[in-house]
């Protein structure tokens, strides 16, 4: 898809994923296709969910390097 994103767009996406927040639009698009009848988290809910997941153990939680 998105070569329309441009260098800055990609850099922003990369920077956000570096701190554990994947692309919201991709999430919304995915939910529309796979679960069209279910509610989609708002961006704020999505952000909180991702933030909690990054620092919890087991789910999305992760180690950090030396």
């Amino acid at each position, binding site marked *: 898809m998105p070569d329309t994103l441009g260098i800055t767009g*990609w850099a*922003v*996406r*990369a*920077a*956000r*994923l*570096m*701190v*554990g*927040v*994947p*692309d919201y639009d*991709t*999430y*919304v698009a*995915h*939910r529309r296709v*796979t679960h069209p009848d279910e509610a989609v988290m708002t*961006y*704020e809910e*999505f*952000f*909180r*969910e*991702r*933030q*909690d*997941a*990054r*620092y*919890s*153990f*087991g*789910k*999305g*939680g*992760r*180690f*950090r*390097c*030396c």
Partner: protein
Amino acid sequence: MTAIVRSNPRGHWALWALIVVIGTISLGVVALSRGEGINAAWLVVAAVCVYLIAYRFYALFIAEKVLQLDPARLTPAQRHNDGLDYVPTNKYVLFGHHFAAIAGAGPLVGPVLAAQMGYLPGTLWILAGVVFAGAVQDMIVLFMSTRRDGRSLGDMIRSEMGPVAGGIALVGVLLIMIILLAVLALVVVKALAGSPWGTFAVVSTIPIAMLMGVYCRFIRPGKIGEMSAIGFVLLMSALVYGRTVSETPELAVLFNWKGETLALAIIGYGFVASVLPVWLLLAPRDYLSTFLKIGTICLLAIGIMIVQPDLKMPAITKFIDGTGPVWSGSLFPFLFITIACGAVSGFHSLIASGTTPKMIENENQIRLIGYGGMLMESFVAIMALIAATVIEPGVYFAMNSPAGLIGTTVGQASQVISGWGFAVTPEMLAQMAKDVGESTVLSRAGGAPTLAVGMAHILSGMFGGQALMGVWYHFAILFEALFILTTVDAGTRVARFMIQDMIGSVIPAFKNTESWTNNLVGSALSVMCWGYFLYQGVIDPLGGINTLWPLFGISNQMLAGIALTLCTVVLFKMKRQAYAWVTLVPTSWLLACTLTAGMQKLVHPSPRIGFIAHAQVFGDALAQGKILAPAKTIEEMSRIVFNDYVDAALSAAFIAVVLAMVFYGVVSIWKALGTSRVTTVEVGAPVGSGVAHA
């Protein structure tokens, strides 16, 4: 470029021949020049050529022949796509994510410490280590986890080598975690002790982070960019204002802390940060430190390219015989222990089996992300080595030798160090302290201050000259302290969860991570574990780094040994034993290094190296009622002896873990050889084999 190359095979080979020639010449200059200092650009070019060749040929060989990556096979991101944890992600975006997760303080500290042997031994190990061990480990672990739904290293060891091996590996991971946190916190203590400027800037990050946390939670929810920009501006203001603090006696005294005070403050901070909700302190600080880390690494790379400083440290110093002041022990095995991250880091096996495999779009990207990501980290290590070797060797040794050896005045220090053959005058040492805005640069071991001086040297050559040296120095200290403290926050939490998990298997109620009692008890236990080693390091007469860094190196390489053992077992189980040398060679090398180093730390007759020998010297004196420097009381004497035995026990534990894993590895390989079937436990077969799309 690849398109051009593909359409023109002759041009392709000519290009690679050219890279080989340039690489050989640069490496030749780096390896063979003696006497006059060489330009750092040679080192950069040599490293880049080695990386390109390794990536183009060796990594491709591993991808195509050893692992036989299958672009048609569905990855976990495709099978479980949920838009959250499992998301097929553009390979360059994922590369950034993976690199940000693996790059930390390790590649910045190890090479600085290793510089006491000259720039050559460290350079050669960083390059050989990354090509044949580090990047291979990262890539194969990423491959294995991708083929197992993104499962963790511990899970994979359990399923491929049995539950006992899995349990032992988990204990090993907890031990390395504790030592890692202690040694990193010690680096911060060493950098900030008696430095009001640095301490002020670092302490300011706490209210700044909290402000950012509140902003991003309530004021403008989820606006990461705005929040980070505000945080960055405030951080830079704190950095600049730090100079005023250090020059105003009434303010300076508030931030002029001793090592012991700093250690207790960091321990208390670690506890609070582990208990508080993540959005308030941990997350915003993590964002700030991640962006600052990436930015600073880029800045340093640009600085080195533009300034092209000369390396002042000799290629090889006399300290390869093991008598060096920065850390004790001979080239083999201790150089290979001192530089862990940047050459091979076991910790990466936890990250390569963490979030990254859940986001890979296609198996054919494993080479770029796993192998390529590690090459990038290795380049960071090379830059750290350059930063440490562009400063005057005399200044380097003054900064990194313990006070017990060089005394506490510039006069004593310059005399002792000049006696070692590295000419330095008291004026040079005093001037350096003045330039960077510190009261002294003596015995600031731990790597961070040396790196900061080196970075200040390079960056002030680009902007600001002498006048901005102090700002650049404290910028470098702030940048390291910031992401080390983030690691301390996050690591304390992870260690807390691990402890809760382990104790929870005996007392099930303790497993609940939501409970406040469990939270407090777990955090306290976690902080006490690493806090003990941190405090011990701070009061250690030899400066702590001397004792703790080798333990950290041994544990990190031990974990790499475990991960590579697993890789080897899996290759045998996949019936790819013809290629098993790819992992067997680095595994054997790491086992040789960790076991030799572990044994030497345990039973070496010299009290400078062996913990038991050291305990005996102090124990004998104690029995006769004598007090040996630096201890001042009988209590301190007994504490030193006790700590030595704790460290010895830890070394013994590392050795036991390694030997146990080797045993289970050999058993698993033996079983795999006894059957003609493929016995790996992969999930998700190639497309068309009937596995449903989740």
